[in-house]
């Protein structure tokens, strides 16, 4: 009996000597987020948007521009600290022409119109770094582009595919 009471006291004493730890969360508001850019084109996520031109025989080569579908959403944003203002530049690489087996057609035959005009209307120039648009921080700019194939002449029958790469850079 005495032995049991002594053990109990010893246990209580031992527990009282150990500090109890409390579960807690720490929150920190970072008022100096790192500079960054955001670029979204097409459906967003990891999917690559595709614009298709499906041309009827009677329309081919008439010189009347043909619309591609769908229209493409473009969203760009940049962020930098107010004390270190920076400018982001949007460029596009259209230097690799569309290909259909041995036949090619340049991206210069494709132009676009901007629905809002925030990211201007234009035409691919076939270069590797065509300037499109620039803007200072911190902004988010949205637009929707509708693409047209010039359709000024005939080219070999078949399906031509190609890819352009937009780059948003903030030095």
């Amino acid at each position: 009996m005495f032995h049991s009471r002594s053990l109990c006291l010893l246990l209580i004493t031992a527990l009282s000597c150990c500090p109890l730890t409390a579960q807690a969360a720490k929150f920190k508001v970072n008022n100096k987020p790192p500079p960054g850019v955001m670029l979204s084109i097409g459906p967003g996520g990891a999917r690559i948007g595709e614009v298709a031109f499906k041309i009827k025989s009677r329309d081919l080569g008439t010189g009347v521009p043909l619309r591609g579908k769908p229209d493409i959403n473009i969203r760009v944003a940049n962020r930098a600290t107010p004390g270190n203002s920076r400018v982001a530049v949007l460029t596009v690489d259209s230097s690799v022409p569309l290909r259909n087996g041995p036949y090619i057609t340049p991206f210069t035959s494709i132009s676009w119109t901007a629905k809002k005009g925030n990211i201007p209307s234009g035409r691919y120039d076939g270069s590797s770094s065509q300037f499109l648009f620039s803007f200072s921080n911190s902004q988010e700019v949205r637009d929707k582009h509708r693409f047209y194939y010039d359709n000024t002449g005939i080219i070999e029958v078949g399906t031509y595919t190609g890819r352009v790469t937009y780059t948003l850079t903030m030095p």
Partner: protein
Amino acid sequence: MKNPCKHALIAAALSVSLAAPQLVHAESVTATGAGTVTADARVDFRIIIPGVLRFRVGAAGGGIDLIDFAPTAANLGTGTDVAATAGSGDQGNGDVTVEVLSNSGQITITHDSNGSVLSDGTGNTIPYTEILTASSDAANLDAPVLGTASSTTPTLTGNLTDESATWTYTYDNTLAYNSGIYGGVNTNGGRVTYTASSP
């Protein structure tokens, strides 16, 4: 027990992600960093070009031209070529516009007058070999010889054909045929049909 290896890996990953410049490939991306930050996004294009063959002889649209010859009694059968009348063909004087446009390989132009004749309805005939055709651009868009089995092949560039020319019809006038009106508007063998075909 702490895993020093795991901590080392996390530290390495963080140091890579913060290294400048940043370069990210995706279609909706955010890139951050102390130095130059760059984000790439791509768009694919697809142009579906159908096979096409357009062929025109004479007036545009659905009109069919009439080529009229009216040799005089004085020059009939002399062998001197006779030009068509002023109102013949879409350009007049026996001249017709010819265009061929295709993206489907080598085009061949044929006609259906091989061995055919123009008749006067009473048993007299004139063979189509009496009607000559000259092309303003024989090298690239020649005219087949009427009344024979000839055909022509317009110039092909790559897999494309895009040629135009003027074909001029004349009457060869080699013999003094019986008087009368031979052929006509789709009567008495007076019509020739040209056909352009791709492989």
